[in-house]
């Protein structure tokens, strides 16, 4: 298997390839390739055209060449077909078999195709050669079309290369070798998180944030196409006409949808199979349906409670940050003037745990100054907790905190530089 050593050599070269991700045979004679290819394979341009055309459809989804880079995945399938022109490449060891144009990404194929036709001149020699190899392939184009239509194509999540239906059998598929070899190009690609409406050009990496409305449109499309079994991702995608939605999104969503619908008897979702809430309550007699219902209701109550608390907590957190930000802005305005004045005053204000309205009333004006410490923003005001909208039974809390307050308003100096308003026991690391 000559390809193997090629891979290990290939690593750094592959990085350069970027969007091509051609982890093929690299040798010093590479630069020679493009010319001979062009000359001796007259049919190449022709096939190039067709693939370029079909590719351009997908290209339209891409916004920039840079993003094509991101479609590089570390998984490529060896692709080879009769339309390769092995003759003009005598300089390569087993070139035809080791073309290693592995590509399980349609976009990569097409992108490469377009690039070859459009940006040929822009690449370095290696890339040009690789482009050439990728594009001039009728089978490639056909495969690409097939892939689009084929609903059983592996979904995008697992990054395993799959074999294009028509490769020559003598081409080893080097998934496993490629994978660990080229982690960096794909790892560096940050997943693109897109809201539903924005156009998205890195389909394999992007994540669509689904909404009920979007899902409804999806369901409708599926129903129009004859149900979840008969509908194809391509068809659904077409029917939905949602900008920014790619076939990968639809495909994975369709998969989930099918799973959810055809297992209504068993619990929904795999995790549920392992968990039956009812099993948990062992001390209750579960023989009758009534008790099961009770158990469920009990569970429901706990869950509701948790949900409530989470909402409250979240709102508090939001408000805290909002206040902090607001004060930060205010401080920055005032920062220019009167810092000295502030420093003197702030020493009397160090009262981190104060939730009591008393303290707040005592120092309403001081709280503003308090924020004028060096590390501003970190000294939010008491006003946050003065707000009557505190759902957590503020009365209760106020009482508790008055009791527990370790009042040391005299802790002056240490706080001027420290960001957090801690009492002197700063040494105790929290967590």
């Amino acid at each position, binding site marked *: 298997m000559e390809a193997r050593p090629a891979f290990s050599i290939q690593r750094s070269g592959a990085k350069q390839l970027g969007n091509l991700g051609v982890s093929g045979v690299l040798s010093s004679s590479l630069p020679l390739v493009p010319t001979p290819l062009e000359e001796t394979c007259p049919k190449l341009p022709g096939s190039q055209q067709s693939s370029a055309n079909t590719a351009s459809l997908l290209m339209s989804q891409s916004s920039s060449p840079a993003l094509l880079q991101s479609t590089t995945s570390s998984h490529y399938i060896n692709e080879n077909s009769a339309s390769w022109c092995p003759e003009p490449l005598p300089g390569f060891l087993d070139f035809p078999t080791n073309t290693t144009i592995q590509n399980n990404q349609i976009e990569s194929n097409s992108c490469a195709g377009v690039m070859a036709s459009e940006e040929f001149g822009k690449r370095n020699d290696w890339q040009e050669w690789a482009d050439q190899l990728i594009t001039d392939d009728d089978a490639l184009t056909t495969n690409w079309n097939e892939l689009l239509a084929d609903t059983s194509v592996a979904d995008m999540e697992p990054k395993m290369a799959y074999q294009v239906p028509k490769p020559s059998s003598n081409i080893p598929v080097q998934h496993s070798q490629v994978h660990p070899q080229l982690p960096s190009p794909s790892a560096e690609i940050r997943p693109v998180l897109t809201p539903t409406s924005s156009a998205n050009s890195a389909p394999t990496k992007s994540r669509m944030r689904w909404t009920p409305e979007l899902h409804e449109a999806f369901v409708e499309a599926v129903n129009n196409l004859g149900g979840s079994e008969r509908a194809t991702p391509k068809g659904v995608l077409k029917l939905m006409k949602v900008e920014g939605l790619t076939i990968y999104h639809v495909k994975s969503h369709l998969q989930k949808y099918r799973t*959810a619908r055809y297992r209504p008897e068993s619990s929904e979702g795999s995790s549920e199979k392992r968990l039956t809430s009812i099993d948990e309550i062992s001390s209750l007699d579960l023989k009758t349906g009534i008790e099961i219902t009770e158990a469920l209701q009990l569970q429901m109550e706990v869950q509701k409670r948790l949900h409530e608390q989470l909402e409250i907590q979240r709102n508090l957190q939001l408000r805290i940050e909002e206040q902090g930000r607001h004060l930060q802005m205010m401080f920055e305005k005032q920062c220019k003037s009167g810092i000295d004045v502030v420093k003197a005053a702030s020493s009397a204000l160090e009262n981190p745990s104060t939730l009591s309205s008393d303290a707040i009333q005592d120092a309403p004006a001081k709280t503003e100054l308090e924020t004028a410490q060096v590390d501003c923003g970190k000294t939010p005001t008491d006003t946050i907790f003065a707000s009557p909208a505190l759902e957590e039974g503020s009365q209760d809390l106020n009482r508790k905190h008055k009791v527990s307050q370790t009042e040391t308003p005299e802790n002056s100096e240490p706080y001027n530089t420290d960001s957090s308003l801690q009492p002197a026991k700063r040494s105790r690391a929290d967590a």
Partner: protein
Amino acid sequence: MKFGKRLKQQVQETLPDWRDKFLSYKELKKLVRLISSAPPFLNGSSEYGKSEAEFVRLLNSEIDKFNAFFMEQEEDFIIRHEALKQRIQKVIDTWGASASQPSEAEYKERMGKIRKDIVNLHGEMVLLENYSNINYTGLAKILKKYDKRTGGLLRLAFIQKVLEEPFFITDLVSKLVKQCENMIDSVFPAEEEEKENEGRETITVAGKGILRNAIAALMTMKEIRRGSSTYSHFSLPPLNLTESDLIPSFQLNSPISVAR
């Protein structure tokens, strides 16, 4: 060691698939320690910038992890929620509003399954909200630590960014949760009489499961919010779980029990 321990406990209690999706709090703490114990650098020096960049990079990758997981789960919930609605509709259509015709037993069975599924779906969604929240809390804490140890000013700006991340914006899940609660009402038999819960025996909640996780989450939340030495204005007030007659005391396998 409080938050870190709490987080670890929570992760242990959580649904198995979720275990590795939580914040790598310990790792981040180590990094902060590393950064702060290095010889002090002046602000603006390249070394300082580098280590801060590293820290930020790690945080960002954690956030990506949360986002990916969260949105994936959210998508699942949307699908399941819709599927449930359809199932309910179908059962109602087949049997009419009253549970009489064709086979009452089958109706009951179907309904029973639906109820269980609704409750579990509800539970999972709430747990996802909890997931979001606890990760956010962890981020806030680690940022605070970072600022404190290194004298940096990372926290405020960074947390503002976090507030806009998909995993923190739980509005949709919250909405679905409420819808589930409404669905429950139409699906559970009406409460005939007020449950007399005087002799509220301790209920042992064994095994792993959604209910257990929910309880664990509540307890964790309460613990995390207990007053600490670093209590500040950015801290949340202690959690006061007001007593409700409906929730008897629970006892997880461990000796921890939720006081009523």
